[in-house]
């Protein structure tokens, strides 16, 4: 039987030998080795003969196939080196049979590797053009993101929480840009291009009485004069149903754009929150190696530019400091009762402050309403509300911060509390502002009725008089500037919001300039001739006020949302403001601020800022929705003039522009009988999804706990290694799948392979000796060691602990002779030699 197999293989050899002369050598060598193996194995009873011979046949076939594919020369060399190494591996003191088995495996794997190395390599070359294109596109896209370098610079010097403010600012800029594009493209441009020009209609003209002062700077600064009667404000728009040759339905567009501004903002905020929520649950698993990874994987070896290197050093230092702060916080253990008591106390104090300020504002607003009825009000009485609000806004936040020192929170959490409290304070401001505005609007509405009558009679009078002069000719229309004008409350509201935004911008910039820059200059230059050290003591350099700036941004956006329906140009102003803000604040931070004393990592999810934004979005939606639904539009200005309610424009459009069935559908849909079940269905869906998400969270937490327990078990197992019975230790080590023996052959480099072969098997021989006499295919099946030998030998663990009896450390390093490429001989203790 064996002879037949030999003959067959010989025939195959001959066939192939006709093709390649150089392969003859390898086949002969292989046959020689194979024959030796076969002879050895035929002596053993417990091993099937078919297995090795089959393996050999497979290897031969494989070799034929692979060589046919090309790069034969390489293969030959590989085979020769592999057989060379397999020859030299004879020197290892393993049994002949084990040697053959190992050799077979090694050769097979090497062949596999060589084939693998060929094919994927070529595929990578082919794919790489597409991959390269994708990579370039990604690079281009990331380069398009504005201010990326600036923000990275800020981040490396000031930490991730300061940088998160700028990232938030950039995001807001993006959202505002989209809103601006919507409003500008769909409302302002059509009216300017296709609508009636300035001066043709009363609503588009400065009234005669105001015309002399209309160009004065002070008037323009107050947004009166020519600015008031421009496309920036609601009042300019004509209520013509369709304009221009496009038959563009401007009133409908105005209404729809106003609604979609809110819709888009809502969608974008919620999408951002959902994305952040995803990211925050994704990690949190790899908390185990934070410092190790920071130490060993944070430096980017690709950096070649000195400036980038500087930034990287700074960011690594900051990152370490952040993690140190986190670590120190988690290590603090104090009296928990004292801490709780102090926190409750602090909260009580702050609630008292908030209530006090709320009452103060209410009181002052009431007073101002009585003042406005009086005559002879002084400057203080007129501006009392603004003064009180500014004072509160200036002094309460630092007060909150001082009280918050009692609470002793982690800085990140402390920041959130501070933000929440200042938010509550600013809500008071908002309340007064809205209240004042509503009073104004109601007044104007009352006034409107009066003016409507006056206008009506004036126009009638004009007609009659001109009809009297020339009977047949149509009377010349009254000059638009002379027509008595209604109060146009919408434009007034718009003007109020624009004024508020502009003054907010100015106050912010001046605060930064004075509070940060001038202060920094003062500290820097006057320090030389001042009694105490200005830099270390008061006032020192300013730290970047994250909470103040974030809240400013959020409230500003709320104002924009509220005002954009009545002043379409407001969003454009905001875009400009955000753009200049980015550059200005980046410069101010880098030049005048110092990093926080305790640099802390921004919370992984930006959801806190988003949550605030969402709240403000709803708060700003309410007044607008209320005015749209319940207040009648002015009779002579704006796109909805003449209608009973603003939303009537929808009805009108459906009736006149859409086919009949659409109107029917809408009337059915608007039926309460349909709407209430729909709302119920949505509520049920929300409840269900909430329950599902809670279940997932619970499952997630359980899995995390399990993994944590497993890791700790592993750690304990390794730590307790020394204490367990050495024999059991041997068994355990052997029973773990010895992937270490299999990984060295996988190295595609021969030289590296040799050095690794020198290293990892060094760990094995100890066990190999222990298992003398039993087959050691891959370290498995090693459960039954004769005890006598086990006591004498011990496995080589890293950091050789137990010296061998009578031997002071037989070999030097656990890694063996690793440096360089030479393949060192692992040394064995004398009693293990065969």
């Amino acid at each position, binding site marked *: 039987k064996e002879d037949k197999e030999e003959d067959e293989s010989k025939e195959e050899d001959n066939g192939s030998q006709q093709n390649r002369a150089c392969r003859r050598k390898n086949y002969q060598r292989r046959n020689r080795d194979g024959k030796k193996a076969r002879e050895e194995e035929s002596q053993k009873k417990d091993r099937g003969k078919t297995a090795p011979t089959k393996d050999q046949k497979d290897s031969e076939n494989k070799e034929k196939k692979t060589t046919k594919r090309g790069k034969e020369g390489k293969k030959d060399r590989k085979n020769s080196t592999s057989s060379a190494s397999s020859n030299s591996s004879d020197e290892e003191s393993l049994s002949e049979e084990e040697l053959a088995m190992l050799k077979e495996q090694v050769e097979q794997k090497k062949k596999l590797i060589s084939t693998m190395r060929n094919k994927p390599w070529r595929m990578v070359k082919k794919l790489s053009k597409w991959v390269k294109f994708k990579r370039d596109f990604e690079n281009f896209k990331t380069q398009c993101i504005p201010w990326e370098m600036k923000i990275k610079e800020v981040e490396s010097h000031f930490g991730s929480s300061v940088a998160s403010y700028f990232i938030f600012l950039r995001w807001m800029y993006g959202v505002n840009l989209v809103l601006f594009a919507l409003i500008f493209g769909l409302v302002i441009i059509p009216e300017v291009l296709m609508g009636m020009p300035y001066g043709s209609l009363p609503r588009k003209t400065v009234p005669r009485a105001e015309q002399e002062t209309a160009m004065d700077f002070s008037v323009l600064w107050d947004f009166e004069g020519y600015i008031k009667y421009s496309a920036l404000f609601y009042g300019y728009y004509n209520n013509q149903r369709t304009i221009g040759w496009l038959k563009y339905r401007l009133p409908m567009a105005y209404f729809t754009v106003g609604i979609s501004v809110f819709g888009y903002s809502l969608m974008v905020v919620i999408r951002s929150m959902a994305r952040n929520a995803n990211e925050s649950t994704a990690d949190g698993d790899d908390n185990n190696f934070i410092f*190790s990874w920071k130490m*060993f994987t944070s430096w980017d*070896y690709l950096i070649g530019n000195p400036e980038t290197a500087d930034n990287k050093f700074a960011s*690594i230092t900051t990152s*370490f400091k952040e993690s140190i702060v986190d670590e120190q916080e988690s290590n603090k253990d104090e009296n928990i009762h004292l801490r709780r008591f102090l926190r409750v106390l602090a909260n009580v104090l702050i609630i008292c402050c908030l209530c006090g300020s709320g009452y103060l504002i209410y009181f002052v607003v009431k007073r101002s309403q009585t003042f406005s009825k009086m005559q002879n009000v002084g400057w203080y009485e007129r501006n009392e509300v603004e003064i009180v609000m500014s004072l509160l806004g200036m002094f309460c936040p630092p007060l909150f911060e001082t009280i918050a020192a009692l609470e002793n929170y982690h800085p990140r959490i402390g920041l959130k509390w501070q933000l929440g409290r200042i938010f509550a304070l600013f809500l008071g401001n908002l309340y007064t502002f809205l209240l004042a505005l509503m009073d104004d609007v109601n007044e104007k509405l009352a006034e409107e009725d009066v003016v409507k009558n006056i206008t009506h009679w004036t126009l009638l009078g004009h007609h009659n008089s001109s009809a009297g002069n020339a009977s047949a000719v149509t009377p010349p229309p009254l000059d638009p500037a002379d027509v008595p004008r209604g109060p146009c409350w919408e434009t007034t509201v718009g003007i109020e919001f624009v004024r508020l935004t502009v003054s907010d911008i100015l106050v912010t910039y001046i605060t930064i300039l004075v509070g940060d820059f001038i202060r920094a200059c003062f500290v820097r230059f006057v320090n030389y001739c001042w009694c105490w050290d200005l830099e270390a003591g008061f006032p020192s350099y300013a730290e970047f006020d994250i909470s103040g700036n974030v809240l400013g941004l959020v409230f500003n956006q709320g104002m924009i949302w509220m005002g954009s329906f009545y002043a379409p140009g407001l969003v454009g102003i905001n875009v400009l403001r955000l753009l200049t803000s980015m550059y200005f604040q980046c410069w101010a931070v880098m030049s005048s601020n110092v990093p926080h004393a305790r640099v802390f990592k921004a919370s992984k999810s930006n959801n806190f800022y988003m949550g605030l934004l969402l709240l403000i979005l709803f708060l700003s939606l309410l007044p607008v929705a209320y005015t749209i639904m319940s207040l009648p539009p002015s009779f002579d200005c704006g796109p909805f003039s003449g209608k009973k309610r603003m939303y009537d424009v929808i009805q009108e459009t459906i009736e006149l522009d859409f086919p009949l069935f659409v109107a029917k559908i809408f009337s059915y849909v608007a039926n309460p009988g349909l709407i209430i079940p729909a709302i119920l269905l949505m509520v049920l869906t929300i409840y269900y999804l909430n329950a599902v998400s809670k279940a997932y969270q619970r499952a997630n937490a359980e899995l995390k706990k399990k993994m944590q327990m497993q890791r700790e078990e592993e750690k304990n197992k*390794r730590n307790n290694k020394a204490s367990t019975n050495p024999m059991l230790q041997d068994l355990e080590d052997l029973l773990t799948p010895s992937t270490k023996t299999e990984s060295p052959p996988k190295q595609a480099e021969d030289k590296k392979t040799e050095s690794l072969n020198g290293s990892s098997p060094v760990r094995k021989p100890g066990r190999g000796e222990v298992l003398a006499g039993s087959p050691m295919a891959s370290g498995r099946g090693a459960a039954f060691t004769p005890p006598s030998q086990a006591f004498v030998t011990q496995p080589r663990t*890293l950091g050789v602990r137990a010296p061998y009896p009578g031997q002071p450390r037989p070999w030097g390093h656990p890694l063996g002779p690793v440096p360089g490429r030479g393949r060192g001989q692992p040394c064995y203790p004398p009693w293990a030699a065969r």
Partner: protein
Amino acid sequence: MGNKQTIFTDEQLDAYQDCTFFTRKEILRLHGRYYEMAPNVVPMDYTKDPDVKLPMQLIINMPELKENPFKERIVESFSEDGEGSLSFNDFVDMFSVLSEMAPRELKAIYAFKIYDFNTDNFICKADLEKTLNKLTREELTAEEITLVCEKVIEEADMDGDGKLGFADFENMISKAPDFLSTFHIRI
């Protein structure tokens, strides 16, 4: 293949391609870089396997290595004589291991060597402190340094000997998401 180059024999080039992750063209380019560092010392003809080594000072001034805080250690780890002078083989070896195509296990071996400043095959506390100082340009206070080093040992030391052996290091680095992308030099 067309171009007749006389720097290496074909067998040498094939051997280089076998043992490193570079292609023929890249190996020739590497030789160009090696040559231009010291044109009067490095021969153009490598067919006879000349025994030429460049000192560390020249190598660490390469633009790819100049800004790296660990440049001396990198060169020392790949140098055969341990002093930091690299023969061309060592030079190619170094960039091959640090290239994109080298596998994680290989990189881990050399990373361990690089961060083992006292070459005792363990990353002990002194090694960690040196690494940290190089990374932060000594801007951390002494207690911060101690805290970080203790945390690192606490996180990664599995066998409890107070220092990181290769197994500990490999176990830790194999899970690191950034390791492959940061431990990479493009040449």
